[in-house]
Each structure stands twice: as C-alpha cells, then as structure tokens.
C-alpha cells in the first residue's frame, strides 16, 4: 500500500513537471469531452424536438388500423376498404390521446381544373387539441366542428386548381359500397406547409362529411392516430395493426437515425484527432524523460514499475480532463435546457421543411444519462490506445547502461 501511494505521488508529481503542457492537454481533452457530451445531447434532443414538432403537426406517433389497411411491405399504400370501429379496441385509454381519421383518395375540382388528392376526414375539435394542424392554416379558417361539408386545401393545391377561400369545389371519389361518391364542399381555409409537397396533395374535411361521402356509418373510420406514445413502445392490440411513424414515414426515420449515427461518428473523429495530438504530446514528454527512465532502471526500478507509473500519470490526466469535460458538457447542456436553442440558427433563419411540412422548433436540450458514461468510457479507451506507442518506445529505450 505504501509502495502504491508512492507510485501515485510519483505519477501525480510528473503531471506538475511541466504545468503549462499539462494544462493544455487537460483543456484540450476536457473541451473535447464537454463538446461531445453537449453535441450528443443536442443531437438527441434536436431529433426528438424536431420529430415531436413534426409528428404533433399531423402524422402522429402511431396509427391503429385494420390489419390490411396498410400494405405490409409499403406503408405508403393503403386499402381504403379496410375500416375499424372503437369496439375493436379493448384498452379505452388508447382513445384519450388519439383521434379518428377517415381517408379518401378523391378528385377535387375547381371551376377549371381537377386534381387527385387524399382527403382526410378529421375529428375537428380533438384534432385541434392534439395536433398543430390548425395553426398551419394561414388563409381563412380551420374546419368548424359545428359545420359540415367544409374543406381546407393545401395552398399549392388551391393555386393549381385556381380556387380560393369561399369557393365551392366538387369532390369525387368511390364510396365503400362501390358507388360513385360526389359532394360539393366549401373551401374555408388554405393550409401552408412551407411550400412542401404535401401542400399539393392533402385536403381536410369534417369526419362526418368524409363518412357520408364514402357511405360509412358514424362509428366507422380508417385510422386512430395517437399522439402520446410512452417509452417509445407501441401497444399491441389483438386483431388490429399498430403502425409506428417510422414505418409510415421511413425516410424521416432514416434521416433521424442518420443524424444520431453521424453525431456519434463525428464524436469518435473528434476523440481520434484529440488522441493523435495527445499521443504526440505524450511521446514528446516521454522522450524528454528518456534519460531519467534509464536512470530509474539502473537504480532498480523494473520496466513494469516505470510503465505502470506512466499509465497512472496518463490515467490521472485523463480522469481530471474527463471530469472537467463532463462538467462542462453538463453545464452547457443545462444552459440550453433553460434557454432553448433555435435550430433556425443553422438555416439562416429560414424555416425547416420535413416530410413536406414546415418545422420551426426551439430545441430544449435534455441531458441523456447514457452519454455521461459512454463518452468517458470511449475517451478512456482512446487514451489507452494513445498510450501504447509512447509506452513501447519507453520500454524499448529505458533498458540501457550508465
């Protein structure tokens, strides 16, 4: 124990041998650690906030549907004849934070032009509470729950078919009984998704109007869309399909995954660059002390003792830097938790469009516990790797004569 204490003291004192160099090494490593922790927290929270914003606007966390509503291998395609009712959902809690939707591929005609779009029948009142869709209406109003046969069109769609708020449009589709469905609806609002593709392909009406159009009973619908998924796990409902948003919008799920993985990759590259610099500094430090190592060997210090003392030295340096870096990372994370970060900073103030919808989130950065041990472990591993070559040099060259 006494010997180990001396070894610790020896290693610690070696850190003070060249204080400026030690401080620079500790600062570079701690700044790197702090940045990586902040960056990972930011990327994680950023992805979550963007997704939360995006999903809350319209898409929802998951859809409860008939088992054959979405095509198994391509959720972009659906079978509109497959409907469900609330009687099929045993857990009534699932109904609280979800809203029913009726979907209908239709043609919508203005006075001069006709286009094919997806008409969605909404539970207007609940939709306003659960989603931010109503906020995207920039011209006119959102659907009035007390009215019927109103329609809200995407801005680009309205331009294409040359209609405006107050105009009537003809809606033509196929009812579930096989008959031709047609209805006149009044345009009450235009929705602005930032000019995205969805602006040209979506239209919304009251659920009752959509049900009547498709000859459905009031309890029948296509989707129950949930906005309150807990622990990122979807419920299992016997006899029905529960489809998570990443399956419905795989391209967006992949983008989020890409951002997460890319952030880790950047973190690893940062650590590698710091490690190379550190390795070089350690090499210089060790080589400067080569004669001293030889002397230690002559007076009786085994190579193992010298090696362990150097490893402890680097470990102490790393531990101080990692502790400081973790603190820095946490402080910066906490700051941006209290003062959310506007990610439009990265786009020069322009809105971010995702999945055809406009996103304007303020990112509140949340600390993720796993980063607080994963990042230090990663840095310790790199430190260990960093030491190998300088140590081999020391071991090779410390066995020498007077």
């Amino acid at each position, binding site marked *: 124990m006494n010997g180990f204490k001396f070894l610790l003291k020896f290693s610690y004192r070696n850190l003070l041998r060249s204080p400026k160099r030690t401080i620079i090494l500790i600062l570079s490593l701690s700044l790197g650690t702090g940045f990586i922790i902040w960056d990972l927290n930011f990327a994680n929270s950023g992805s979550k906030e963007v997704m939360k914003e995006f999903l809350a606007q319209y898409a929802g966390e998951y859809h409860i549907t008939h088992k054959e509503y979405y095509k198994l291998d391509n959720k972009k395609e659906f079978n509109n004849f497959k409907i469900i009712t609330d009687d099929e959902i045993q857990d009534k809690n699932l109904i609280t934070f979800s809203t029913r939707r009726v979907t209908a591929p239709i043609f919508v005609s203005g006075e001069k032009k006709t286009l094919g779009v997806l008409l969605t029948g909404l539970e207007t009142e609940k939709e306003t509470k659960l989603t931010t869709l109503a906020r995207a209406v920039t011209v006119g109003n959102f659907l009035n729950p007390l009215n019927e046969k109103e329609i809200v069109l995407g801005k680009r769609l309205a331009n294409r078919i040359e209609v405006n708020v107050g105009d009537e449009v003809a809606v033509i589709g196929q009812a579930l009984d096989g008959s031709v469905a047609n209805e006149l609806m009044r345009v009450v609002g235009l929705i602005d998704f930032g000019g995205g593709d969805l602006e040209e392909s979506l239209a919304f009406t009251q659920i009752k109007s959509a049900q009547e159009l498709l000859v459905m009973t009031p309890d029948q619908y296509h989707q129950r869309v949930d906005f309150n998924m807990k622990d990122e796990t979807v419920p299992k409902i016997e006899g029905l399909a529960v489809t998570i948003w990443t399956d419905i919008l795989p391209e967006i799920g992949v983008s989020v995954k890409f951002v997460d993985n890319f952030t880790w990759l950047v973190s690893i590259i940062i650590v590698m660059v710091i490690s190379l610099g550190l390795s070089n500094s350690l090499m210089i430090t060790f080589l400067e002390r080569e*004669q001293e190592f030889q*002397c230690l060997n*002559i*007076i009786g210090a085994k*190579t193992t003792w010298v090696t362990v003392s150097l490893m402890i030295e680097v470990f102490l340096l790393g531990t101080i830097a990692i502790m400081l870096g973790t603190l820095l990372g946490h402080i910066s994370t906490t700051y941006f938790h209290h003062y959310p970060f506007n990610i439009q900073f990265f786009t020069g103030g322009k809105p971010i469009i995702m999945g055809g919808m406009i996103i304007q989130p303020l990112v509140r950065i949340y600390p993720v516990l796993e980063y607080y041990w994963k990042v230090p472990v990663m840095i310790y591993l790199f430190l260990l790797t960093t030491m190998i070559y300088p140590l081999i040099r020391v071991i090779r060259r410390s066995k*020498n004569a007077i």
Partner: protein
Amino acid sequence: MQFELINVDKIYQASEENKIFGAKNINLKISEGDFMALVGPSGSGKTTILNLIAGLILPSQGSLKHGGSDITSFSLEERTKHRLDYMGFIFQDYQLLPILTAFENIEFPLQLKGFTKKEIDERVHWALKQVGLENMGHRFPKQLSGGQQQRVSIARAIAGRPQLILADEPTANLDSKTAQEIIELFKKLNQEFKLTFIFSTHDQRLIDQVKTVMYVKDGQISETRTHHA
C-alpha cells in the same frame, strides 16, 4: 559476498570483420570494504567495466559472479532486482528526480525494495545525516547546489546499505572545494561503515585517496596499484 568478473570480454560487433573490444580479458574481484578506482582516458573501457559489474550489459565471454550466483544467467528483470538489492549508484550528473524532494529521492529505491514507512524514515534520516544534509530533505533538487545534489545522490546510493556502490565520475561536475569534500565523504563512509566503492574517474585527488587503482587501456586492465594507508 564477493563480486567477481572472470575472463570477461565485451565485444561490440559492428560487422563480421569489425569487432571492437569494450572490455578484454577482465579479471576482477571486489570484496567488502574495497575502495577502488578504474582510471583511464575517455573510451578506454572504464564505464563498460562498471556496466558489466552492474549487470547492465552482459559479457560476450566470461562470467559475472556475485556470491555463488552467476549474474549472466539472470533475466533482465532479475538483474534489475539484483542491482536494487545489492548495489548503489552515483552518477556524474547526479541523476536526481526533479519532481521529488531530496528525502523522496533517497526514499525511492527503498520504496522499490518494499521497506516499511518506519524503516524508510530511519534509513533516509541516517543517509541524510551521513552526507550532512539533515535539514534539507524537503528541498527539491533545483533548490540545491551541485555539491548538495551529489550528496543527495550519495545518500540515495547508501540508504539501502548496499554491498557495492558504483560511482561514475562522481566529482567531474563539481568545483575543486566541493569535489574534495565529496571525496572525504566517500572515505568516511568507506572507513566508518565498510561500504564498498568502485569509481570510474579521472580525478587525481580521488585516485590518490583510493586503496586500489586499476588503469584501463583499450578495454584491458593494464596495471593495478595498491595504496597502503
């Protein structure tokens, strides 16, 4: 226990044809209480002989013995331990660790030997007293003069009461007065505690004080003279 070099050659071979004898046919016995010097010009082989005695290098031929043990059969780590257990070293440029105080520098080999804290305290204080630096244990090497640093180096070498102390040009970096004091210190340690010293030196004052002088030329001990006190 005696240290013995028997028919030792050390050949540095640059190529098949180009062989350089660092030491040639060395026969040397070092007994307890010896106070001897290897003397010769630079490159004559003095330091090679010191290195051979210390087991820092191995002979190309012949054997190195300590008591009944053949040091040439030891592994590198065993030779390091052998040095730690039986030898002390004094260097021309002191070789103190700048990050440790005088006390801690002396403590260093004792820690490696595994002494208890109490034993270490006793031995370090004893060594500091012998070299006349009782009150300077807390100072770092840079806070000491050259002569004081060499005294700490001597204290480090004697603290473990080794059977043999090897000193490579111990007075070369010191001024005349300090060198004389250090030589007196060596003499005192040899006479009072029967510590065995072998020096490699050019310093005539030291040569005059040792009991045995071995003149080294071209790797060979060409002449041995014994002074009688």
